[in-house]
């Protein structure tokens, strides 16, 4: 019994210690983001990688989500003769919830893993130590541009994802379910408020920051060898996905109403 309690205590302390390490890492990374020198080329490279090269995967995900949402909501709402709300349901669901969360999860899989693997490999092959000996702070050169790029790019991706998702709903609504195109579009815009879109973008910025933070943190603290890098990659994807879902609730609750 005592052993059991001791193990719980040990696990709790370890958990708190890792939260502490992560917080210190995040604080240092944020600090170095705003201090010179600034690595513009690194930032551009990350913006291309996170923003531009994630467009196809985010576009496809939101397109088909919008299409499915139109079909499912039509099936459900037809049961109480509320089919004409499909366009409104699609636009609100995509902008407030599906766009940011799906884009966040897809980018977490693509970028979180790639950041952890790249930085982890740099750790195990002494490239991070080499940076340090060449008078370059690894936090500033590797982590800060990724955090900044993640926070900037996700909202842009989500905005594009929102448009594509609504387009998916429109295609299904008009060409499969037989809605009038003009009425569908007017219904789409009728109940949409600026706050619906901004809420999604705020969420996206938080998700982008979290994805980059977890990718960099796990890569930076990667264990030795291929196994260490593998664990870092898995941990980065799992932890950023969980944090996306938790922070999604927290941000929604904060702006609820």
């Amino acid at each position: 019994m005592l052993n059991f309690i001791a193990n719980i205590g040990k696990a709790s302390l370890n958990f708190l210690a890792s939260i502490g390490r992560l917080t210190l890492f995040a604080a240092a990374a944020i600090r170095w983001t705003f201090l010179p020198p600034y690595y513009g080329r690194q930032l551009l490279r990350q913006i291309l990688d996170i923003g531009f090269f994630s467009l196809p995967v985010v576009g496809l995900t939101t397109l088909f989500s919008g299409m499915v949402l139109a079909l499912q909501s039509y099936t459900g709402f037809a049961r109480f003769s509320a089919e004409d709300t499909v366009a409104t349901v699609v636009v609100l669901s995509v902008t407030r919830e599906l766009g940011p969360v799906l884009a966040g999860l897809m980018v977490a899989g693509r970028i979180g893993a790639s950041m952890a693997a790249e930085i982890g490999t740099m750790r195990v092959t002494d490239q991070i130590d080499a940076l340090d000996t060449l008078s370059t702070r690894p936090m500033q050169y590797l982590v800060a541009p990724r955090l900044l790029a993640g926070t900037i790019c996700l909202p842009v991706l989500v905005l594009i994802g929102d448009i594509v998702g609504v387009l998916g709903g429109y295609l299904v609504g008009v060409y499969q379910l037989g809605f009038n195109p003009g009425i569908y579009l007017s219904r789409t815009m009728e109940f949409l408020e600026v706050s619906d879109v901004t809420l999604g973008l705020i969420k996206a910025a938080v998700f982008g920051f979290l994805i980059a933070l977890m990718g960099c943190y796990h890569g930076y603290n990667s264990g030795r060898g291929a196994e260490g890098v593998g664990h870092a990659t898995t941990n980065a994807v799992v932890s950023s996905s969980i944090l996306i879902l938790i922070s999604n609730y927290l941000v929604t609750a904060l702006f609820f109403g």
Partner: protein
Amino acid sequence: MAKKQATPKIIIEHLVKSFDGNMVLKDINLQVEAGQSLCIIGTSGCGKSVTLKCLLGLITPTSGSMRVDGMEMVGQTRAQREEALRKFGMTFQFGALFDSLPIWQNIMFRTLQQGEVSRHAAREEAAHIASQLGLRADVIDQYPAELSGGMQKRVALGRAIADKPEILLFDEPTSGLDPITGGVIDNLILDAVKRLGATAMTISHDMASVRRIADRVAMIHEGRIIWCGPATKMHESGVPEVHQFVHGHPEGPLTGKKLPSAKEKQA
């Protein structure tokens, strides 16, 4: 009148480093004179790389003192350390070249980051360094993954010497290379050290390389320097561990196995 002795370039005193209670370095004491080339030898895991990493501030020692030109390296502020690091050039065991950058940017990394020269001038300088290291001109636009192990070691050497440092640190510069390429790297090291008038510390398991590049040799065993002397006297050290290591005998004090007696050998 006795000639005044110059202060050693590097002085390491009572260096101790432990990781989670495991004491890797127990008491390292070393001195390296300016312009001297010191090789550190010892079995795998004895703490050779840890010693170099402590000197560069990549690892914080548990206790002890490390001075370069009389300046204490332990407990420096980040700014002091960055200033001190300008004196150093280091090559890592596996090259540690930056995969995402072409060779010329790898060689001129520090200079480029500090914005001291234009990118065009940096590229020209990288081409010059590459030619000194026997690399073809077109190599500078390639990426590390496109080069052989020997070429990567040359590029790593180029990066280490690009800023004309006063102290060069080499972590197993010939490991994983064939003897001929290893010999070429040794010659390049000798040439670079001579040209820069630098002080060198090299970690190596390759005794042929040690004989070629070292003025002095220090052996670490169980966290302590058990022998330090001129490279030419390695064979006469009188220390069984040094003897076993230098000759590569599988039996002896380093492996905990007894050397077979003459009778046992005959049997």
